[in-house]
């Protein structure tokens, strides 16, 4: 009766079910939570916003959306247990770069390996990004510092690395002789060049001073 226009045109408030519809539409379309006061201002004269809200809250009980109170205002929100539906991950598979594969291979065959050692074998400097990527992938991790001047950090492969490559232990990595036998070395270097790099010994060697196996 305080609003002459509303009471003139609508002498009676709409039924509660209709009020509930109205509250539902207003809350849905509103860009921010709506207070009881705002609801009363927007709904036809004589509406009982709290009662309509209560009915609406009951109706949404157990549904995919909920009526929630934000401060002194009300809003519709998706049910918290369904939050996982709101983010959708698309997985893209990419091949590791050659630099990353080589660095990983050096760590695997020579672990623990320092960055300087990796660079010496690759003949080029190793970018920080490559090391970081392998650390991110959880395929390498920091080993103990080398007890040499400068105490450089070393890298070792992880359990996740072995899981990914299906290795029971880094010892399972085939040596150069086996690689050659498998035809992975495209050509055979001159015989007298070979003894100088006793590759297989070398690779086996490193597992004698076994890298600390990580617990995962």
């Amino acid at each position, binding site marked *: 009766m305080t609003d002459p226009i509303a009471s003139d045109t609508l002498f009676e408030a709409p039924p509660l079910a209709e009020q509930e519809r109205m509250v539902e539409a207003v809350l849905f379309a509103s860009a921010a939570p709506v207070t009881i006061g705002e609801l009363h201002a927007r709904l036809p004269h004589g509406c009982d916003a709290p009662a309509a809200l209560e009915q609406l809250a009951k109706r949404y009980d157990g549904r995919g959306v909920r009526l929630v109170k934000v401060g002194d205002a009300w809003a519709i929100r998706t049910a918290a247990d369904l939050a996982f539906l*709101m983010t959708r991950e698309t997985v893209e598979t990419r091949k590791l770069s050659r630099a990353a594969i080589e660095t990983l291979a050096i760590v695997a065959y020579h672990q623990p390996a320092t960055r300087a050692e990796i660079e010496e074998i690759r003949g080029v400097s190793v970018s920080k990004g490559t090391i970081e990527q392998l650390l991110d992938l959880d395929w390498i991790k920091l080993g103990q510092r080398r007890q040499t001047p400068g105490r450089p950090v070393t890298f070792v492969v992880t359990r996740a690395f072995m899981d990914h490559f299906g290795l029971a232990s880094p010892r399972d990595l085939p040596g150069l002789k086996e690689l050659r036998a498998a035809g992975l070395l495209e050509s055979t270097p001159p015989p007298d060049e*070979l003894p100088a790099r006793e590759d297989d010994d070398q690779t086996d060697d490193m597992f004698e001073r076994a890298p600390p196996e990580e617990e995962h």
Partner: protein
Amino acid sequence: MTEDFIEGPARDPDPDAVAARLAAEALIVDVDGFEGPLDVLLMLARTQKVDLRTISVLQLARQYLVFVERARELRLELAADYLVMAAWLAFLKSRLLLPPDPEEEGPSAEDLAAHLAFQLERLEGMRKAAARLMARDQLGRDVFARGEPEGLERSRKVVWTATLLDLMQGYARLRTRDDFRPFVMDRKDVFTMEAALERLRPLIGAVGEWTDLTAFLPDGWAGDPARRRSATASTFAATLELAKTGVLELHQTDTFGPIRIRGRA
């Protein structure tokens, strides 16, 4: 607004010609409000108060020509489109009035008139459809989307892969790379036969006495054993070459004894 303006005079009980003339006058006042000659024709057609399918194209042509005539009298500038249409309608009008010429090729005047009526009906149809479309409940005016969307995210996850084979091949590539470094000759400590020949040729003519070969080694090649070996070998080879051509003689007294040479001039 223009439409209302026309509807008024069109209700006049007077014959069509009068209505058309009045309509044409009304049109001229607001020619800018029209969307081309077809639009004007559609407005004029409405003054005939008949279904567009049964419209008199002949009468429509007259109405349009009156419209253009009046516009000229009022010195209103009409776009070329309007004048092209006027010329075409004048032509159509004359063909509709004359008996059909059996020699004439191409579409008949009736076909042309029928197509014009079709165009008007189609434009009218689109106008009505557009009006009905705009009268629908519109988003943001009559119906509303969620005001505070919570958003659906689509995140992209990159999975990096490598196989054991990649790893082994990568390692194999690294470990064998050094073995196949291209062979580079060490030229610093090599005195070539060409150089020895070049050195000996100008000298030998002046050598009348038997002289030890080692005396002909170039400066700086006698000290270091490797360099000395190289220079000695190439100088000896050069003397053999020169002996063959007959410019010098060689002499060695016993095995491993000093080799001496002299010119044969």
